[in-house]
């Protein structure tokens, strides 16, 4: 069957989708967006977390057909999504101009070439600065979940952070640096000028 989904602000179409196929499979294998990771396929690990109409979900548990006509944000679109939310983005632009097109996303490198203007969402920068990334497999899901927490709760308590990330497993870091990263992103959002001055 054919499935139409708006992914990271751009209308996308996938053909020959099997009826039992997950949204995660469509994103990774049909739309060329491998940022959302495939690990447990049973909603235990959170590494496939995406926003579905704004709500964080495990994309491995959403049937592709259920996402028909809906909006998905993946880690590939997180920077644009955060920028748009901050009111600096391309919200006023023409439809389709917003978001990251798949060709650009496919060319993305783990380490952008020197001089590239690759932008990160604040929560992504905080993960790097806090050393919250080790093998990196859980990172996309954690970023999407953490970003949604900070959107909802500007000054999250430690309990808020732990609960918001309780569905995302990390086997490397022991979580402490991940918690640090979320605290850092929240603190930077609360005092953006102080950070710039530092």
């Amino acid at each position, binding site marked *: *069957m054919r499935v139409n989904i708006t992914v990271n602000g751009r209308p996308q179409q996938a053909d020959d989708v*099997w*009826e*039992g196929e*997950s949204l995660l499979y469509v994103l990774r294998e049909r739309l060329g967006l491998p940022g959302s990771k495939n690990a447990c*396929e*049973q*909603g*235990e690990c*959170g590494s496939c*977390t995406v926003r579905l109409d704004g*709500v*964080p*979900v*495990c994309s*491995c*548990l*959403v*049937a592709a*057909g*259920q996402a*028909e006509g809906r909006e998905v944000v993946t880690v590939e679109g997180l920077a644009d999504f955060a920028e748009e939310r901050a009111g600096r983005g391309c919200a006023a632009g023409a439809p389709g101009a917003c978001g990251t097109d798949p060709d650009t996303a496919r060319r993305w490198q783990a380490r952008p070439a020197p001089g590239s203007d690759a932008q990160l969402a604040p929560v992504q920068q905080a993960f790097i600065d806090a050393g919250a990334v080790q093998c990196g497999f859980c990172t996309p899901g954690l970023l999407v*979940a953490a970003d949604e927490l900070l959107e909802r709760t500007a000054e999250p308590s430690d309990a808020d952070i732990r*609960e*918001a990330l*309780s*569905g*995302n497993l990390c086997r490397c870091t022991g979580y402490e640096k991940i918690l640090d990263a979320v605290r850092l992103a929240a603190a930077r959002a609360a005092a953006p000028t102080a950070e710039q001055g530092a």
Partner: protein
Amino acid sequence: MDFLRPATWDEALAAKAEHPSAVPLAGGTDVMVEINFDHRRPAYLLDLGRIRDLEEWETGERTVRLGASVPYTRIMENLRAELPGLALAAHTVASPQIRNRGGVGGNLGTASPAGDAHPALLASGAEVEAESVRGRRMIPIDDFYRGVKRNALEPDELIRAVHIPKATGPQQFSKVGTRNAMVIAVCAFGLALHPDTRTVRTGIGSAAPTPVRATAAEEFLTAALDEAGLWESGGPLPPSLAREFGQLAAGACNPIDDVRGSAAYRRHAVGVMARRTLGWTWESYRGQERSAQCA
């Protein structure tokens, strides 16, 4: 496999009548796992995601009519006052991602003895609103669970809503697992005090082939509270009474040994949870009584 996407409830009923083997799909948190792991290859998937009124609830005078697909997150956030037992249980379901998708209709459809909503539904005395093209019927929760992952639905029926009496007294939910999140219950216990009828109801999860009530424990406690005039006096609960209640609740279990826990452990833990939840709810009831008398 065919993917059926009814836009309305009537279309969904017609599709289910035409294809009784169709598997209803809402949050997908059970069904998609089975498909991902090739444990299940239904001929038809019946996606209920476009039927928006399944995600709505109505608060009436005596009951809440909870749409089958209302996500656990909404229950936690919006129905804590009316349905405290279910809201507490909803908060223990898996993770935020799962709570954003899963709902009580799916828990009932799957009818796993470990489903987190069941103890609260049993303790509050809910009714399941089931419908087919032949008509609508209300199934009392006590008659709903028929075996391991079997329920009272006919092949052409779908769950539209659950009617849950609004709390008239304190309710509690307790669950044993290895951590607070992402846990399938080793066992669970729900308790509701019903001061309006001077009764107590319970629900046990994951300690028998189906979710069950601890009827002997309920009857014992109801009689004991009545005899000692404790509903009126709001007096403290004698420890011997709480102990006996716990023992009777443990006796209502018919558990198995499995990877999550042994039968003996489950029986013991249900007894402990019954005693503790009784303590919590009774103290809360006494607090309410005292403040009512002071007012």
